[in-house]
């Protein structure tokens, strides 16, 4: 066995694999182009969380770039991303509307009191019906909707500071420029 270098071959192949896996970690396979992107946001009219006698529909935000954030008080990852929304609401970049998903009213209001309420308002989708239209398959989810009511971005799972800074904020800025 003179050619001892050959014995390094498995190690070499393994290291190449590791490099790919490492790069893979920085990518997001969940960033699957959602079929909803580029399509008009599915219409809904739902009771508001804090004032159930009033309703809210997208018409009320027509002409604005806005964010729809699907959240619930029972959702642990929502709490992880929540401070970002509270910060964003303070910065007043775009109005954030909440879709309170399959939740109890009292729990949700208590939750907002505890962790802060970044939403212009939240609507209650207690049955999760609108969630089906939007293809919600994990809470939280976040949609960026443009002035014409078209979905331009969808985040499945909690928004991270990176996603917010590199994806959502530039997109909002771009959408606000175009008329």
């Amino acid at each position: 066995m003179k050619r001892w270098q050959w014995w390094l071959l498995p190690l070499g192949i393994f290291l190449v694999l590791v490099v790919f896996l490492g790069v893979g970690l920085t990518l997001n396979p969940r960033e699957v182009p959602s079929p909803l992107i580029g399509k008009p946001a599915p219409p809904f009219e739902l009771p508001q969380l804090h004032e159930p006698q009033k309703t809210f529909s997208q018409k009320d935000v027509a002409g604005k770039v806005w964010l729809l954030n699907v959240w619930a008080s029972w959702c642990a990852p929502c709490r992880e991303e929540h401070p970002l929304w509270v910060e964003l609401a303070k910065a007043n970049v775009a109005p954030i509307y909440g879709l309170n998903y399959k939740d109890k009213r009292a729990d949700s209001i208590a939750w907002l009191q505890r962790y802060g309420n970044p939403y212009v308002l939240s609507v209650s989708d207690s049955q999760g019906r609108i969630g089906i239209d939007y293809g919600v398959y994990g809470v939280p989810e976040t949609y960026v909707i443009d002035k014409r009511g078209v979905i331009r971005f969808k985040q499945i799972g909690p928004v991270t500071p990176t996603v917010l800074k590199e994806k959502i904020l530039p997109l909002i800025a771009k959408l606000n420029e175009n008329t």
Partner: protein
Amino acid sequence: MIPELGQFALALALILALTQGTLPLVGAARGMPSWMNLARPAAQGQFVFVAIAFGCLTYSFINNDFSVLYVASNSNSALPLQYRIAGVWGGHEGSLLLWVLMLSLWTMAVSVFSSHLPDDIIARVLGVLGLISVGFLSFMLFTSNPFDRLLPAAMDGRDLNPLLQDPGMVLHPPMLYMGYVGFSVAFAFAISALLSGRLDATWARWSRPWTTTAWMFLTLGIALGSWWAYYELGWGGWWFWDPVENASFMPWLMGTALIHSLAVTEKRGAFKSWTVLLAIFAFALSLLGTFLVRSGVITSVHAFATDPKRGIFILAFLVIVIGGSLALFAWRAHRVGLGGHFEVVSRETFLLTNNVLLVVAAGAVLLGTLYPLFLDALGLGKLSVGPPYFEIVFVVLMAPALFLMGVGPLARWKQASLPELAVRLKWAFVVSVVTALLLPLTMGQWTPLASFGLLLALWIVASSVTTLWSRLKQTPGASLSKKLRAQSRSYYGMLLAHVGVAVFVVGVTMVKSYEAEKDVRLAIGDTVELGGYAFRFDGLNEVKGPNYTAVRGTLTVTRGGAGVATMYPEKRIYNVQKNAMTEAAINTGFTRDLYVSLGEPVGDNAWVVRVQVKPFVDWIWGGCVLMALGGLLAVLDRRYRVAARARTREDALAAGAAAAS
């Protein structure tokens, strides 16, 4: 209080694992018996503390302690008790705890059943296992603590994923993990052989029963998972080439190669470095599987909560463990030498060829699984690799492997003769070709693929019978039963496992070639015909389960006017997560399954109903069970219990003599 106790137990287990992973290894390197002797008590203590932690988490689940985040995320007060227990491993944190529990169980088993091993070897094996345990325990404690509190406590839990609320899912993960984790023992033996520099037949003999046991559990675990997918996902498919499935299948292929390679190393002293490499690969693929499932690098229908932070940790761990051992391999293995010499035509060659085919197959699965990732990483777009790729690769690679399976056991070690083999196998060949050509005709339609699949299966059975027959002829003894009893259990284990493969191949071939399905709109009273069976839709009623409500359909199945079965497919809505679940009704038979699932309602009491007839589908899992039983027989072989002691003493003496000279 209980969750804190669990966390404390985990911390203590980590300290013991650190002890177990360092001092005995140093002791073995420097020849200090007192340090080496720490390995066993540390391993056993670690098991006790991990078991306590596992017990604590189970306790929190049983008592609905929703102040524990993990319990709140994976359980619910309305969840039946058996699923509250299964919920312990229903999510990421708990599956890790199960992983660690299995690891400490294997480690303890090694520490108990190893009294015949030399002290330095056992110190090294347990030391390596301790280091693996350190990695997983710290992964759990630092990134995925199952005991994290949720304050204020949730009113109720989010419920266990309804897909997992199923008896198959209660058993599948523990079985699978027993297998996965079991390869860590083979790995630890391989590493300790490299460390000690004594890479010989004894090493193979020691690690063989452990490897076979792990392989057996993995076989059963994969079969259970496939069976679960078949009846629970409601589509009637049994294997989807999903990344998570592939993650369990790659170690299986590698493990299969490993147990065959170990046989050669034990019997002939050949393939030594190749066997070591396979042991490293088998465990590497187990770890890689964990990485793929847990890091979110690849999407899958099994999507659990994934998190890139965790991915980095596992990747680093992977680099240290596998990179380290491959470096050790490169440094040490080239001095080993090739071992026993053998001719081109010999059992060694057949086994080596099969080995290579299995490894290439595992590589092909790995490539198919990671290909989307490679493309994405190179910025070439997103795509997924589907079943057609995997199926073609498998037919091409496994067909020669299955053919060799028939030849290998009959060939002599060292040097065999092809003409002689041809003479001995000619009847097996003729019988299997003729039967394979004719048999598909009885199914009403002849297809080349059906014939080919059956040919391979029949060939394995016929050549196994030939092998047994010629072996019996060589065995001295008065009566046939005496001759039969003279064969070792491991020999029968081998034959049984090979026949299991044949049974599996029959199942796959028949399902692929002759399954029939129809999606039809059925109103009450309507009948649909499929494969000679008439399915009449008799009605619907509502059913309340413990934590779901369901619509249950009733279908009466007849064949030629005679009643066959009444089937009750359900569509369930689980109360907490509001998921709709299709609960298929299956009528199981030896030669076919009838499979009915409810689709969607289409007004006026009419539903879209999918009916399927699946010939021989249960043979797929039956074959896996036979393979596992074959493994069990091999492990129960007398020589592991009776002869081990005496022989190892000789080996130890010989090794001592060799070291001294």
